[in-house]
């Protein structure tokens, strides 16, 4: 019997079953699930043409006795829902209309007099060829022959799946689920092998509901395809929330400005996205610091609030200024006097968390619970005050792992609680329930400009990771890498920052020579870069400072962060490479890291349909000459030489629609151009009318498109230029340009967002003389805020740079104490030539398609003219100017390390690692 016939019979069988009355039926592309609304609850599944019948689609198990509950009857059925009665329990399974997946809501109501503990399981049959593979939300089993499942929420993605060579089926919880315990995986001996279970505690007269999701997938990269599809089903959970401050992209760290505007330059140099804002409150649990709980240690409370507001405002110009909270602890006195129900207690009422001074050294704290009690109201109200009164841009949650089990009256009565099976329990809830509630609340808040964002330390369960906009791993990427990988999967495209590095704990350094130690550190930093480019993990600002290796690769690392990580690399190679894929369409970035221990010339295949239809051209990250890429029906092949411990980073800016075969090579993609420039490719393929789609550098405007040397019509939308051309298979004579030999030349002239006129003159401009200000900055009278900020930012550039020459490595607040720093005066007045060299800042029309321009005008006193069409363009022009000036004013920061380990390696607080 052929596979097609088997499939057809399966379809007919399933169709027959689905046609039966009293069946709850749901369907999406590639998947049909039918559940008999009889007491047997039989599930039938058809996945991409193959069908199977299994056991009960859902089951309830009593948490006290462990016994499976059998329904007395099915009492209601429709194509949309089914209802069953289990004596004093009623369970309802309902489907939600969607085209791209099947969503179920399972609701359980308790009509009895006692609290009920239940394990609710949804299970599906698997129409897969044996041996099939499985993933339990955490780990993969290549051929499932015994039960393979995960327990708990810690480091587990809330989806499991199974697949054979042709098809896969995924089953999981919906992302908003507030649960404390789950189990996901497969049991090959069961009638319905793929299952997802949650534990529920339901009080008398109450009900609980849980959302499940099922979908098929084509398993070209196994579970990664299922995970990628989950991201596409629920995209809002895997990218920073809409409306949050877009400055969040970048490194994270400690700005420590003390309100000094020198932090602007610190943030620019080390690419800050956000400041962690560590522990600003007076006592733990009173996040806003209210007078009634205040002991006067900060002086006048109103003045302190004003100072905090000022610091946030200054830092907020260049990064997200976060306000730190840690809602797993509470000040002991605060709890005892005001919120006794926040204390974690055992069944006898004894406080179970130990006391200590772990966050702030001048207070004693203990474990606290902030959900469903009086502490919750106070905590949430404090967060609102931080948004509305302090105007913070976001809240940073420390210790947000989320999976820790908590006991006591608070957790026992919390939504989302679970139980330990057995006659005596106990009932508990994970800490993530409280954290998730706070995070959801934060996302409802606004400071008048942005929705507040959430940063989290170590979120490693669905409750906290799904609700974080950025996250940190408080370690190096080589430390607890499994945890880091789990966080990456849970966070999706969101920034994930590696915070600390403690090689002294990993290396047997007392036995190593100083030379070996330095080599180990070099390899350490090379690993950070390579792992970051593989998984989109970013070093913190304090790991970047003083580290030339990290700084050299920071543009690449931040580019992949901004593009967003995808689980499926979409590439295969004949060497064991670390393959990464980021972004979508013509914004895709591909990374290929070589950790084989030897240089390789890798044969690489790219499955281009993950990027989009048609053929693709790849360009090196730095815009130089790229590999020759041969596209053939959805597979692009290339040979890439990659040195050991190095990563090749490629962009995919060129898409050729309506072509299935094509060869492309990038000759130049000048992404960093500060003058009008030309993108150049050569393409060859069977004769066909094709549509070219090319991504331009950010803010650039296309001026002309030439195909085979002749101008062609084009259009531009956002960053993409589109043109229709006739692809040709043969070589084309392209005149004297010797670099283009085979294929049809494609050229795209563009003007960058900001034009730098006469770079050399700019570098020679007398901004400083003997490290003193030698010019003035001029703004128009009554200049708007954007112009003032632009002027101050240039002044701060020199103030900061001259200060760090005296005190390298110092924090911005400390640098304010350096008296010798150069302060270029900012004056308002006419833009005409003055006696001193001038930097003139202006809003206004910019010649040509650029929106910003930096020019040097030779006059009696030379003038730098910085213009932008609007405040945003002016800011871009200032940043372009400062980037040029970095060539003459280099500063890498310092490592700020100490102790015997680094001393043995010859490094100290003021070192720069080259």
């Amino acid at each position, binding site marked *: 019997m052929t596979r097609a016939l088997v499939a057809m019979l399966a379809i007919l069988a399933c169709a027959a079953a689905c046609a039966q009355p009293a069946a709850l039926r749901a369907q999406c592309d590639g998947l049909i699930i039918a559940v008999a609304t009889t007491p047997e609850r039989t599930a039938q599944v058809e996945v991409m043409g193959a069908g199977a019948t299994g056991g009960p689609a859902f089951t309830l198990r009593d948490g006290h006795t462990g016994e499976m509950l059998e329904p007395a009857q099915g009492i209601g059925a429709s194509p949309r829902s089914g209802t069953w009665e289990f004596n004093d329990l009623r369970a309802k399974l309902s489907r939600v209309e969607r085209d791209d997946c099947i969503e179920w809501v399972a609701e359980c109501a308790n009509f009895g007099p006692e609290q009920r503990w239940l394990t609710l399981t949804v299970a599906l049959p698997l129409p897969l060829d044996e041996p099939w593979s499985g993933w339990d939300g955490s780990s993969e089993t290549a051929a499932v022959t015994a039960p393979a499942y995960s327990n708990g929420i810690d480091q587990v993605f809330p989806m499991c799946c199974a697949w054979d060579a042709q098809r896969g089926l995924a089953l999981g919880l919906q992302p908003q689920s507030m649960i404390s315990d789950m189990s996901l995986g497969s049991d090959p001996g069961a009638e319905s092998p793929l299952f997802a279970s949650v534990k529920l505690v339901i009080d008398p007269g109450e009900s609980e509901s849980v959302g499940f999701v099922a979908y098929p997938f084509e398993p070209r990269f196994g579970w990664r395809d299922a995970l990628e599809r989950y991201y596409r089903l629920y995209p809002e959970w895997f990218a920073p929330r809409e409306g949050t401050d877009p400055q969040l992209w970048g490194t994270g760290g400690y700005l420590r400005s003390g309100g000094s505007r020198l932090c602007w330059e610190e943030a620019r140099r080390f690419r800050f996205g956000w400041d962690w804002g560590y522990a600003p409150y007076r006592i733990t649990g009173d996040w806003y610091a209210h007078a009634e709980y205040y002991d006067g240690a900060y002086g006048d409370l109103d003045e302190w609030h004003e100072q905090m507001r000022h610091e946030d405002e200054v830092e907020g110009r260049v990064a997200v200024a976060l306000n730190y909270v840690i809602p797993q602890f509470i000040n002991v006195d605060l709890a005892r006097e005001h919120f006794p129900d926040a204390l974690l207690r055992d069944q006898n009422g004894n406080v179970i968390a130990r006391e200590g001074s772990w966050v702030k050294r001048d207070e004693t704290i203990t474990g606290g619970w902030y959900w469903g009690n009086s502490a919750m109201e106070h905590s949430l109200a404090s967060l609102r005050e931080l948004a509305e009164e302090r105007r913070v841009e976001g809240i940073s949650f420390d210790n947000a792992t989320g999976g820790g089990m908590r006991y006591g009256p608070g957790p026992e009565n919390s939504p989302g609680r679970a139980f330990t099976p057995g006659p005596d329990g106990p009932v508990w809830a994970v800490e993530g329930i409280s954290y998730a509630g706070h995070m959801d609340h934060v996302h409802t808040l606004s400071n008048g400009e942005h929705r507040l964002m959430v940063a989290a330390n170590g979120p490693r369960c669905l409750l906290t990771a799904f609700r974080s906009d950025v996250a940190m791993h408080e370690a190096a990427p*080589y430390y607890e890498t499994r945890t880091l990988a789990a966080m990456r999967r849970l966070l999706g495209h969101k920034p994930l920052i590696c915070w600390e590095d403690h090689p002294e704990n990993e290396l*047997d350094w007392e036995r190593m020579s100083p030379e070996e130690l330095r080599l180990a550190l070099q390899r350490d930093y*090379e690993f950070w870069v390579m792992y970051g480019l593989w998984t989109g993990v970013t070093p913190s600002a304090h790991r970047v400072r003083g580290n030339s290796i990290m700084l050299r690769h920071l543009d690449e690392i931040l580019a992949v962060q901004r593009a967003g990580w995808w689980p499926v690399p979409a590439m295969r190679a004949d060497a064991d490479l670390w393959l990464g894929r980021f972004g979508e369409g013509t914004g895709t970035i591909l990374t290929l890291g070589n950790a084989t221990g030897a240089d390789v010339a890798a044969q690489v295949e790219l499955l281009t349909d993950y990027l989009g239809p048609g053929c693709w051209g790849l360009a090196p990250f730095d815009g130089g000459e790229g590999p020759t890429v041969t596209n053939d029906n959805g597979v692009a092949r290339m040979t890439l030489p990659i040195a050991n411990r190095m990563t090749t980073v490629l962009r995919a800016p060129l898409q050729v629609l309506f072509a299935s075969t094509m060869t492309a090579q990038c000759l130049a993609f000048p992404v960093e151009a500060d003058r009008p420039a030309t993108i150049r490719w050569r393409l060859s393929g069977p004769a066909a009318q094709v549509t070219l789609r090319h991504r331009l550098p950010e803010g650039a405007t296309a001026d002309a498109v030439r195909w085979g040397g002749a101008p062609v019509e084009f259009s531009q939308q956002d960053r993409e230029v589109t043109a229709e051309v006739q692809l040709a298979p043969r070589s084309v004579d392209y005149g004297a340009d010797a670099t283009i030999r085979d294929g049809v030349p494609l050229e795209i002239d563009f003007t960058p967002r900001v034009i730098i006129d006469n770079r050399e003159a700019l570098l020679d401009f007398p901004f400083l003389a003997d490290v003193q200000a030698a010019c003035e900055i001029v703004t128009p009278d009554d200049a708007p805020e954007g112009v003032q900020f632009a002027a101050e930012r240039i002044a701060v550039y020199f103030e900061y740079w001259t200060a760090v020459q005296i005190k390298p490595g110092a924090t911005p607040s400390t640098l304010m104490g350096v008296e010798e720093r150069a302060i270029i005066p900012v004056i308002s007045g006419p833009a005409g030539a003055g006696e001193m060299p001038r930097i003139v800042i202006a809003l206004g029309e910019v010649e040509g398609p650029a929106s910003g321009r930096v020019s040097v005008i030779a006059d009696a006193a030379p003038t730098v003219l910085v213009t932008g069409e609007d405040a945003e363009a002016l800011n871009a022009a200032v940043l372009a100017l400062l980037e040029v000036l970095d060539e003459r004013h280099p500063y890498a920061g310092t490592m700020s390390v100490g102790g015997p380990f680094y001393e043995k390696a010859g490094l100290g607080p003021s070192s720069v690692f080259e």
Partner: protein
Amino acid sequence: MTRAWPCLIGVLIAAQAAAEPPPRIIIEARPVPAGENLIVNPSFEDGAGEWPDGWAFTVNQPTKVVRFWADQACTGERSAGVRSEAGNASGYWAQDVAVHPDTDYLLTARVQIEDGKVLVRAFGRNAAGEFLKSFDRRAYDRRRGTHIMAPVFWQPEWIVDMVREPWAPVNLLLHTDPDVATIQVQVGSYFEPGTMYIDDVYLGPATLTLDYVVEADGIACVRIYDQAGALLARHARTQLPIVAGSLEGLPPGGRYRFEATSLAGDVTEVWYPEPPEGVQP
């Protein structure tokens, strides 16, 4: 009576900060089996069924930690294997052994660790067979079979716990409490993924061997005393920078004082395993 064993096998290093380096004393303690082995089928060679005779297996997550009767061995042809897939799971080969109260014992096993952490544990039971939470003696050892940095970024020998001698012993010296009638010996994987092989488990009497090295720029004298002050060994004046020696057959519960004097007159004093109460280290 409970007796502390803070350093069952290890290295003690003592030196004082001074302009002229004082003598440096390094002591390594090695327990040595010295009597009848109370373990049944200690080398896991015997057994006609699926599992070796005399041994049970206790595990907290049966799907994550499995045992196997391995075909590789330190001695003989078989050993006891444990394979763990999870960092939150444990599984131990276990055997109950009758012991005398208030007695010194050595529990040791040869363990080859591919990856993970091994626990050698003596869990006491009273005469009624109940476990005694007050008597739970443990020794751990660990090997990282892999490290994401090795070998491409870091050499394995640079990394802590990466290099371990195959079949190196894991030793646990213990002194039974008066209410301990039985010890459950447990050897296996402790809350780290990995695979390990266990062989030649020994529970019985032991003696202690102390290997020592004294380093200085010329040594005037090295003396070693027991706790009562009896001189056990002495090394005479030498211009050599190193003096080394061994003391064998020592009772494991004793304390020993090492005293080294350099030619410059600097004196270093070290107690093994630790000073008696009231004596400053």
